[in-house]
């Protein structure tokens, strides 16, 4: 029988995930206040609704909540925009992944970047450039990439958190990697 998450476990979990969650939200919404609100909402939802679940389920549950909260934020934003923007501008493109300038960009696979960390640029600059590149990535690609490689979730868990198929996760991840590599290379970042 699985052990249910205790207060202590929940507390530990939130403590270790909160900074990454904040950054994830920042990459998506580009504003500290909004990002903090998103993290707060996600934490509350987890604690309020799912605290009675086994501790090992917390990461997946939390990521699912976090991604949904970020999406909700954009949905609400869209409603709010009805009153502040020219109406016609709301009715332009469709969902997030549509125009991805990176998808048409070619990267030479097996090229020589991604070598010695911080070889040429200051490492804090590298971090900034990586973060900026992540912000530019289409939402789903960013989600998939961060869940897989930052949250260390496997493909199945990432798919569950994102509410999509494992195949899409792989596609999103691979595009994300190519997109990021291209953007970073352009900025002269050698990883």
């Amino acid at each position, binding site marked *: 029988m699985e052990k249910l998450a205790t207060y202590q476990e929940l507390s530990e979990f939130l403590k270790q995930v909160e900074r990454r969650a904040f950054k994830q939200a920042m990459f998506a919404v580009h504003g500290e206040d909004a990002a903090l609100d998103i993290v707060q909402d996600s934490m509350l939802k987890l604690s309020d609704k799912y605290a009675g679940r086994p501790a090992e389920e917390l990461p997946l549950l939390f990521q699912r909540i976090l991604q949904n909260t970020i999406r909700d934020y954009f949905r609400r934003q*869209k*409603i709010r925009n*009805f*009153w502040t923007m*020219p*109406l*016609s501008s*709301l*009715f*332009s493109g*469709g*969902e997030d992944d549509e125009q991805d300038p990176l998808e048409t960009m070619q990267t030479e696979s097996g090229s020589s970047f991604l070598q010695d960390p911080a070889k040429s640029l200051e490492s804090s600059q590298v971090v900034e450039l990586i973060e900026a590149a992540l912000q530019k990535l289409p939402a789903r690609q960013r989600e998939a990439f961060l869940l897989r490689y930052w949250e260390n979730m496997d493909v199945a868990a990432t798919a569950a958190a994102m509410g999509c198929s494992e195949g899409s996760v792989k596609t999103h991840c691979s595009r994300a990697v190519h997109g990021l590599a291209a953007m970073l290379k352009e900025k002269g970042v050698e990883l």
Partner: protein
Amino acid sequence: MPAVQRKRLLGVANRYPKMTPEQQRRIRARLDVWSRLTPEQRTQARDKFIKLKQLPPEKRQEIKRKWVERQQAAQPVAPPAATAPVQGGSN
């Protein structure tokens, strides 16, 4: 803008991605005018839209044709190049 109108516009926005490019173009072009109408005018337009939809297809087409004809009669025919429109109209 009242909440009801907001909801309806949101409803339109939700449907928008599923519409054809031509329909989307029309919506973009008309939304501004639509949002400036009074609630009464919008209700009026909806009523007529429904009435028109309920007609048999051939009658619907007939009315559409009448409308187009009347529009064309009301306006001078636009010169192909938009330079120096003929003053005073034709006919």
